[in-house]
Structures are given as structure tokens and as C-alpha cells.
């Protein structure tokens, strides 16, 4: 175990109300790690991958889709934690009155999703699962705010999107026809995972362990006192506490013990379902010709590293 401490730890986060934000809002990380933390906000997994490859950040949140793309492209990081499993906070919404009740009705319609994101992956998975040729629909690349604008004009028939845009679209003549939770149950897991830069993890493994311990504590706090957690998040994001609470309820958050199970990270001895899910995602992207080649299962299993969490949970 290396003992030296870095000047600061640089953590890349995204605006998702999960355990990391709870702990961040309460100042737990700084206290636990004992070093200065430089918080960097990212908007997309693409930028996280770039920053990771550039060695500019140490730990970051990234969606499972960009993580699969990053691992396939050889970005030097390891997956060490599941911030949240995407549940009802990402869903496919259809405009009422356009005769769309299920995925098969999307033939000939305009569907939007932010490309490269977890919802984009799930949209394509949905087409496959329900046996629809994606070429028969028009799939548009849009960021959530633009999607909402187009939605209100009536330009779109459906969109696969996350909060808070999701609720706004539902409120404006929208109807959820499929959620990520449903697809996860079918074995197509999407999640927000923690990645740590290999160089950093090797040099300061104890900091990584402490970081994960904090996150697990945040999950426990959320279970025990959701109001307290929501208040913290609300302050952090400048949104009402009720809204924070509502959004947090759509996420599935797991504590450290739970994550070490087969269904998620697994153990050093045997990797869990997350590795498989990342591999599936990578294969799927390769099939779509959006990435050149998918990482092998062995490589993905190697990159999913539960050893830090195991230490943290001891």
C-alpha cells in the first residue's frame, strides 16, 4: 500500500441525484479522504472518456454505454462501483394520440435519443427485443432540452430520455411506453458506474477504498432518511427538495454489500452480471458499427474490479 497522499483528488461528476451527490453535498468525501477534492462537472460520457484518457481526472461517473465504448477503445480505467442502476428515470415516452402504444408502433415515426448515451443503447435494444427494424423509424440525435422543445412543437413522436426532461415530456401529452427498468429486467442493464484511472488506483488504492466506503454510507443514509438526502441534493442542484426526492426515487441505489453480489459487480473470484452487461453493450455498439471492435469478455472482466469495494466492505 502506497502511503503518500496526492495534493488533491479530481472527481468528475454528472448531474444525477445519486449517492455521490448526497455525500458531496454533505462534505463527506473531503472528511473521509483527508485531501482536497476538485469537483469537475461533466455533461456526457464522451467528455469523461476524453478527460480520463488525458489523465486529467482520477475518478468519474460515466454511463454504462460510454463505459463500454471507452473500454473497447482502451481508455485506461477500471469500473469499481455502481452509483445507480437506471430504473424509471430513463424511459421511452410517446406522444399521446399518435397511435403509439408499444415499441412496434414506432414504425414510420420519429424517435429521439441522445446518441451514445444509455437511452440510445436502450432504444436500439428495444427495437431488437420487440423485433422492429430500426431502419423503419427515424432515429434523431438530440440532447434533452432540445428534445423537449421539439416535443412541445409536436415534431417528435417519441423520445427515450432521462429526468428532468422525462417528466416534462410526460406532462405535455406524453405517455411512458417502456422504461429502462423493464429492459434491465430483460437482462439489458444500464447503469451509472464509477471508473477510476488505473494509474491513480495503483498509486493511491487506500483513497479509492475510502471513497467507496463513503458512497456506501451515503446509500445507507438515503435508505434511512430519504428526506435528509433529498434536502442535500436539492441544495446542491438548486432545485426544490420535492423534485429531488421524486427524481431520486426513480433510481435504484445499492450499498456496497449488495453490489458485491452476482447480480452486479460480483467478487474478485467471480465477476457478476455487470461485466456481462458491459460486454453486451459493447457488442451491440459494434454491431451497430458505431465502434470499430468490442472489447473481449476477458478484457471487460479484468476492467471490472471489485477488489477495492471488497476492502471497503471489510
Amino acid at each position, binding site marked *: 500500500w502506497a502511503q503518500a497522499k496526492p495534493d488533491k483528488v479530481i472527481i468528475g461528476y454528472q448531474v444525477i441525484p445519486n449517492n455521490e451527490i448526497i455525500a458531496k453535498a454533505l462534505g463527506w468525501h473531503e472528511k473521509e479522504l483527508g485531501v482536497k477534492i476538485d469537483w469537475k*462537472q461533466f455533461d456526457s460520457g464522451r467528455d469523461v472518456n476524453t478527460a480520463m484518457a488525458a489523465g486529467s481526472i482520477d475518478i468519474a461517473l460515466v454511463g454504462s454505454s460510454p463505459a463500454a465504448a471507452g473500454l473497447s477503445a482502451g481508455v485506461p480505467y477500471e469500473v469499481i462501483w455502481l452509483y445507480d442502476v437506471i430504473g424509471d428515470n430513463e424511459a421511452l415516452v410517446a406522444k399521446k394520440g399518435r397511435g403509439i402504444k408499444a415499441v412496434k408502433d414506432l414504425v414510420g415515426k420519429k424517435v429521439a435519443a441522445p446518441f451514445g448515451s444509455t437511452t440510445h443503447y436502450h432504444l436500439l435494444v428495444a427495437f431488437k427485443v420487440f423485433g422492429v427494424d430500426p431502419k423503419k423509424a427515424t432515429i434523431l440525435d438530440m440532447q434533452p432540452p432540445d428534445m423537449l422543445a421539439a416535443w412541445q412543437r409536436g415534431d417528435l413522436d417519441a423520445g427515450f430520455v432521462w429526468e428532468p426532461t422525462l417528466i416534462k415530456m410526460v406532462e405535455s401529452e406524453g405517455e411512458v411506453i417502456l422504461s429502462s427498468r423493464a429492459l434491465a429486467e430483460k437482462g439489458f442493464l444500464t447503469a451509472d458506474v464509477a471508473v477510476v484511472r488505473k494509474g491513480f488506483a495503483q498509486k493511491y488504492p487506500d483513497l479509492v477504498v475510502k471513497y467507496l466506503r463513503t458512497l456506501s454510507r451515503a446509500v445507507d443514509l438515503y435508505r434511512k432518511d430519504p428526506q435528509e438526502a433529498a434536502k442535500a441534493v436539492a441544495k*446542491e*442542484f438548486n*432545485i426544490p427538495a420535492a423534485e429531488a426526492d421524486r427524481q431520486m426515487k426513480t433510481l435504484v441505489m445499492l450499498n456496497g454489500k449488495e453490489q458485491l453480489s452476482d447480480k452486479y459487480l460480483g467478487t474478485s473470484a467471480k465477476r457478476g452480471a455487470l461485466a456481462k452487461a458491459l460486454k453486451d453493450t459493447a457488442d451491440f455498439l459494434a454491431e451497430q458499427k458505431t465502434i470499430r471492435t468490442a472489447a473481449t469478455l476477458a478484457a471487460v472482466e479484468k476492467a471490472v474490479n471489485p477488489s477495492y469495494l471488497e476492502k471497503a466492505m471489510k
Partner: protein
Amino acid sequence: MVVSVPPTRAAARAAPKPAGHRRPGLAGLRPEPFLTALTLISVFLVWYAIARFRVVSELFVPHPASVWQAFLDILTEGYRGGTLLHHLFDSLYRVVVGFLLAVATAVPLGLAIGYSSKVQAIFDPIIEFYRPLPPLAYYTLLVIWLGIENESKIALLYLAAFPPLSVSAMAGVRGVTAERIQGAQSLGASRWQVFRYVVFPSCLPDIFTGMRVSVGFTYTTLVAAEMVAATSGIGWMVLDASKFLRSDVIFMGNIVMGLTGLGLDRLIRVAERRVVPWKGKA
């Protein structure tokens, strides 16, 4: 506020009036300030009407009152960890540093390209090639090389500020009359001196035009520059607010950006009037 004013009051008083131009209207009042006010009021009324009669959703066009409220809130309480002035200062710092670095390099290079066909042959291909590249398309490379701190952001703004300056400086050199150059040569000026003492001042009006275009352009790149790994800056604030669909903050941020951009532009116009008083006279 937009009407051009002569350099000094004294001069204005004594300046010969160009005849046949705008004669003072009723009671000697000039109509321009009223027209400007009229424009501003119309824009505001249209906005107000849109918000009042909910032509489009509050999600996209907020009520002026909410924008004002957002302004007050963020001015005093801040937005996610920084007050408005703090965000504004961070952004202005990036813009101004990037712009000044560009002025210090693009103008000399543009002049040199216009002046020497050899320099042109060397640098023109590079500049002309990168010029049309969208910042978003190469920002990734900057992040890799310069990291996610201010360096990459300033570099992006620098690259945005560069082309208008070099193009204008180059065009300025092309427009210098042969007589001015030949006159200096016959007075013993070396090639370098001709450049320094004749070509450069002759190009100043063009350089100022380029600076005005450039500073606006730099500003428009601000949001892109603050898209990656920023936690401060007015561009970041707008972008962040759009994720939370806070249209009041978006509007407020845009107005602040518009006004500060306008302020920078005015500064350059004022500088131009002081530095190039001969414009349009010779």
C-alpha cells in the same frame, strides 16, 4: 448609446457641421436615442407579450419578472457555488486572456502573411485549414493536450479569436496603397521598417474591424469552452441551467452575456476612435 460621438467634447463643439445631413428636429433633439429606446422597448414588449399570453411555454420563454428574480437571486445567493459576478469574472477572464493572446499573435502573423509571400506560403495553409474547423470537433484534442483546467478553455477561445484577426490584418496589408510603401522606401526605410512604420499603421482600421468581429466570435465560443469540466463561468451556468430546464436562468445568462459582449465591443470602438482618428479621411 450607439450613435458615434466625436473624440472629445471640445472637438464636438467646434467641429464643422457637415451640411445637408441630419438637421436637428423639433426643439433641436436628435432622433437616434429615441429610436434606440423604441427598439429596446419593442423587444421587451414582444417578450412580455409572449410570456403574458403564454404563446410558448414558460419552460422556454420565461416571464420577465422571473428572469429578474433569477438575476437578483443569483446576484446575491449565487448559482451552484458561485455568485453571478464570480461566474462572470471567470468567463471574462478566459475570454479576455484568449482574445489578448490572439491579438498578440494573430495580428502580427496576419500582417506578415499579407506582407511576405514566403510567410504566407508557410502559414497560410495551416491557418486556412483549421479556420473552418468547428471548436466542438477538436476540443477533445485540446483537452488531451492541455487538460481540463483553464488552459484548454483559454486555448479554445484563443483559437476562436485568431482567424478574424489574421484575415483582417492580411486584407489590410493588401489594401495599402503602393505610394505609401514606395514613399517610405525612397526615404530609406528597410523592408522591416516599411512594415513597422507604414504597413502596420495603415492596417489599423482593418485590425480594429477584425478585433470587433473577433471578440464577438470569442464570446460565442464561450459556452463550448465551458462545456467540458467547468464548474464556473457564465457559459457553464447557462448550459447547466438548460439541463434543469431553468429557462429563467438561461435567459438571464444570455442577457448578461449579451450585455458584457456589447460592453467589450464598445471598448474596442472607443479605442478605435482614439487610435485611428484619421479613418475615412485619408
